[in-house]
């Protein structure tokens, strides 16, 4: 992967006022994946919105990594259910539109 797609976590911690230990605890909880490039700990820019969301939940609501794991799981679950409802609506309209 191109290094320009990486965000150095030292920079992230400085700009978001979090300790690097917070990043380590997120990685230990399996919430993010980090990579080391030229001895610098990085995340991919694709994962940055997720990391920022986690950081906001931690800073604003004081939620620990385990709690954040539960919250993100439930948010994903809600999104999946919304998609399933849309699919079921389509199937229902198929049967409702059936000719007698």
């Amino acid at each position, binding site marked *: 992967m191109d290094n320009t797609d990486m965000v150095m976590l030292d920079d992230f911690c400085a*700009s*978001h*006022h979090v300790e690097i230990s917070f990043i380590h605890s997120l990685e230990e909880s399996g919430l993010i994946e980090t990579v080391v490039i030229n001895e610098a700990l990085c995340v991919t820019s694709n994962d*940055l*919105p997720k990391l*920022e*969301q986690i950081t*906001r*939940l931690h*800073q*604003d*609501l*004081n939620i620990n990594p385990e709690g954040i794991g539960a*919250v993100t799981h439930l*948010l994903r679950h809600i999104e999946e259910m919304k*998609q399933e409802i*849309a*699919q079921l*609506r*389509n*199937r229902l*309209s*198929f049967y409702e*539109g*059936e*000719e007698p």
Partner: protein
Amino acid sequence: MEYIDYYKVLGLDKNATQDDIKKAYRKLARKHHPDLNPNDKEAHKKFQQVNEANEVLSDPEKRKKYDQYGKDWQHAEQFEQARQSRQGAQHFGGEGFSGQFDEGDFSDFFASMFGDSGGFRQRQTKFRGEDYHAELQLNLTDVYKTHQQVLKVNDKNIRITIPAGVEDGQKIKVKGFGGPGINGGPNGDLYITFHIVNNTGFRRHGNDLHKNIDLDLYTAVLGGEMTVDTLDGKIKLNVKQETQNETKIRLKGKGFPVYKKDGEFGDLILTFKLKIPVNLTEKQKELFEQLSKLSS
């Protein structure tokens, strides 16, 4: 500009302790946090109010100023100048405040009391921009093939590719085409929900298409050839002898394209609906009677 009762925002009275404020803030912040209420503008606004109330009431200096001048906030600066001239060069608020909040995040009331930067603690919350939602109505035949379309969203023309096989109610995300980020946060995304209008006579079930076909008695009994419509044009069909009413036949690969799988198609399922001849001539009736006798 309206006076904002920060105590009311947090559901507290004026005698609330710091502990009460902390608890009320946590409870309401959890309830209205934008990350927990994606795309809910009302929750976003509520969260900003709760945040603002907490920033003021959890800081003893700012709470004091708010309690002192709150209802007369319009005159706070004059009161302040008069007080300072009486007490010499004593600062209120102090220079230690160098918050980085964007003024747009807070009310005019707050800015008038505490200044644009608000005297916040050093914390800059970055938020993704708002996600935009758009709806696009298309005909079933429009989504039979991948095509490009230009959409106008908030006065911006956006060219999008609509892949063949999109379903009714399906939502696609166009990354970065939502509202601008707050405090340097990333732009939101644009979500487009498709409404597929089907007036083709085909019924769609996933990638399969269904259609009822009228079959005359003679072709049903004797077999024969007939022409049927598909979304891709007409095809010739061989009807077997003695085909029964409600017989279904499946035409492989003549259904709807599979979403984002080039060259893959569902099937077309045809159901024969037998049509009994009406208004028979005397000769026809006679022949049917002969047939009937032969069969019994």
